């Protein structure tokens, strides 16, 4: 489990103490000098986890409650969770044991307002043994305050020699590209509008205000007093 922090954040991050006796979780609070991407938040937390199978196969070594806390500030949960699930790997055939193993994690994530970033079917682990199939077990979950700041999830960097490929998650100021849909003026319903426009009445203009009112109005509009 390795995590890289951008140089600009190096002087502003804190590694939190051991996480409730769980060895496989590392949490860092990162505090940029300025508010985080023009939001009201001044820091965000990254929880990096390595979760392995336990004896009963129902819950892994890191429990859903530890992984997905219900916090009111930006939080990114990521790591090798060893969970196979149809949201990230839709083409995989799941055993009953696997279904039992991912259900509590995804229920808790949904309950705490987390979203899965992994694009469906994009593998993150390519076993070095040729007989085993690739899988998606490195999962990333931003919570609701962080989700609007997530710009991209990419697995395009070259291999580091591990069977897990490096993943880059980019955070940025919310993009203006997410514009609301615009009216399609070519499809205006003129048949319905025709009688409405014909019946549209414009009231007569009121007589002009006296000069003092007009000046006061202008002054208050532009000076605020």
């Amino acid at each position, binding site marked *: 489990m390795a995590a890289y922090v951008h140089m600009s954040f190096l002087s502003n991050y804190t590694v939190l103490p051991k996480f409730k006796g769980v060895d496989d979780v590392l949490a860092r609070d990162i505090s940029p000098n300025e508010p985080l991407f023009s939001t009201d938040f001044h820091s965000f937390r990254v929880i990096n986890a390595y979760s392995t199978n336990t004896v009963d196969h129902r819950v892994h070594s890191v429990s859903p409650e530890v992984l997905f806390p219900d916090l009111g500030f930006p939080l990114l949960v990521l790591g090798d969770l060893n969970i196979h699930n149809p949201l990230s790997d839709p083409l995989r055939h799941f055993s009953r044991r696997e279904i039992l193993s991912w259900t509590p994690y995804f229920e808790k994530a949904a309950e705490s307002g987390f979203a899965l970033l992994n694009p469906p079917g994009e593998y993150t682990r390519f076993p070095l043994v040729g007989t085993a199939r690739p899988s998606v077990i490195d999962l990333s979950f931003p919570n609701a305050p962080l989700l609007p700041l997530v710009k991209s999830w990419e697995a395009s960097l070259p291999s580091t020699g591990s069977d897990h490929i490096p993943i880059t998650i980019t955070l940025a100021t919310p993009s*203006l590209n997410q514009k609301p849909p*615009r009216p*399609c003026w070519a499809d*205006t319903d003129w048949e319905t509008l025709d009688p409405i426009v014909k019946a*549209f009445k414009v*009231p007569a203009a009121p007589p002009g205000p006296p000069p003092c009112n007009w000046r006061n109005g202008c002054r208050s509009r532009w000076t605020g007093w």
Partner: protein
Amino acid sequence: MSESLDRLVALLKEHTPVSRPSHHSKPWWTPHLSILRREYHKAARAARKHDSPHMRKIAGSCKAGYFEAIKAAKSKHWSSFLLTATPQSLWTAKRFAYGRAQPRFPSLPGAETPQQMNSVLLEHFFPAKEPFSPPPRLRPNKSAPPLTTDEIATALSKCSPTSAPGPDGIPYSTWKQVNKINPSTLLHILSPPVLLGYHPTSLKSSNGVVLDKPGKPSYESPSSFRIIVLIRTISKVLERIIAARLLAAARLRGLLHPNQCGSLPGLSTYDACLTLTNNVRTLQRPRLKVSSLFLDIKAGFDNVDNNTLARILREGGIHSYLVSWVSSFLGQRSCTLIFQGAPGTPAPVNVGAPQCSPISPHLFLLYVAPLHFGIPRGLMISYVDDFALTVASLSYRGNIRRLQDLFDKPERKASGLGVSFSVAKTELIH
């Protein structure tokens, strides 16, 4: 007026569906491809179910046929698009061939947050000017001729349906249709501003789209970006109406010099070039040496002063309602900058004559017309903000002396108007 306009805009938006981006995402798609896709999926399902080499072969050939057909359909669509391409679709073809460049995010030193970037860009594009002096009180002007439906129809006929709309998003085509259904609607909405000589504040808001200038070595300065200002189309209709009235009055009262070209009906770039060429050849015929000094007014539109322009118009005998409308139009404007991550808050700006407006070139021509007066006719010709002084004598040295003498007059007048000639763009041609 603003309330009626808002009510009408709301009605129009209510009866217009939102665009579906997927509708035109595959213009090359054909019904035949839908059949092939269905066949391919059917064959693939059958191959998975029966898992025989024969079925797998059929599924493979279906897949190959489907993808080949997609390739052919794309190629055919591109060829037919090029065959039917018009000069107007040139940029669409470029976009298809090269893709659309992603807008560059401004990264300005000392401006870390979007709010700071917004302020820096606003200061660069709209530098602070003298405060605006408020127009006289609003009162219907009896000398103002009432607005007619013909004026509105003429103004609308000159508007391109593909022109980018302003903050309300309504294109000209919609106003044309509204005017076709009920000409009295726009007449009643636009009449009060004309009669009162007042441009409503609601029509003076604009969107300023910040675009990067291509090929700059660095994008850490606001000068590496330019701005396209978009105002409401209904405002531009009103501006065209006033521009037509103002131009007619200015020509009647001789406020424009006959040697001024550009943005005037019947006096285009071609006319300006032809007149200059004709002048030069006429002077060359008696074997004289001819020299032309080309001058350009620096940031011309931005430096139009509201109070000075009102004085020029008033002294020129322009109707008071037009002078009042122009003063109201130029003052108290606001602009919302649009770039990635922009806060999207409108800010009051002082822009001189706004570059986006159809009336601005006319206002600028009237503003700089005094530069022509006092110079013998035929020596100076101008195209909006570009001036050419042409002289002839027996020697080039004599020409230079004459040009130096002549240049003093427009330069003094320009400084009185608060404008100056750009040294970098000045050219002398013998």
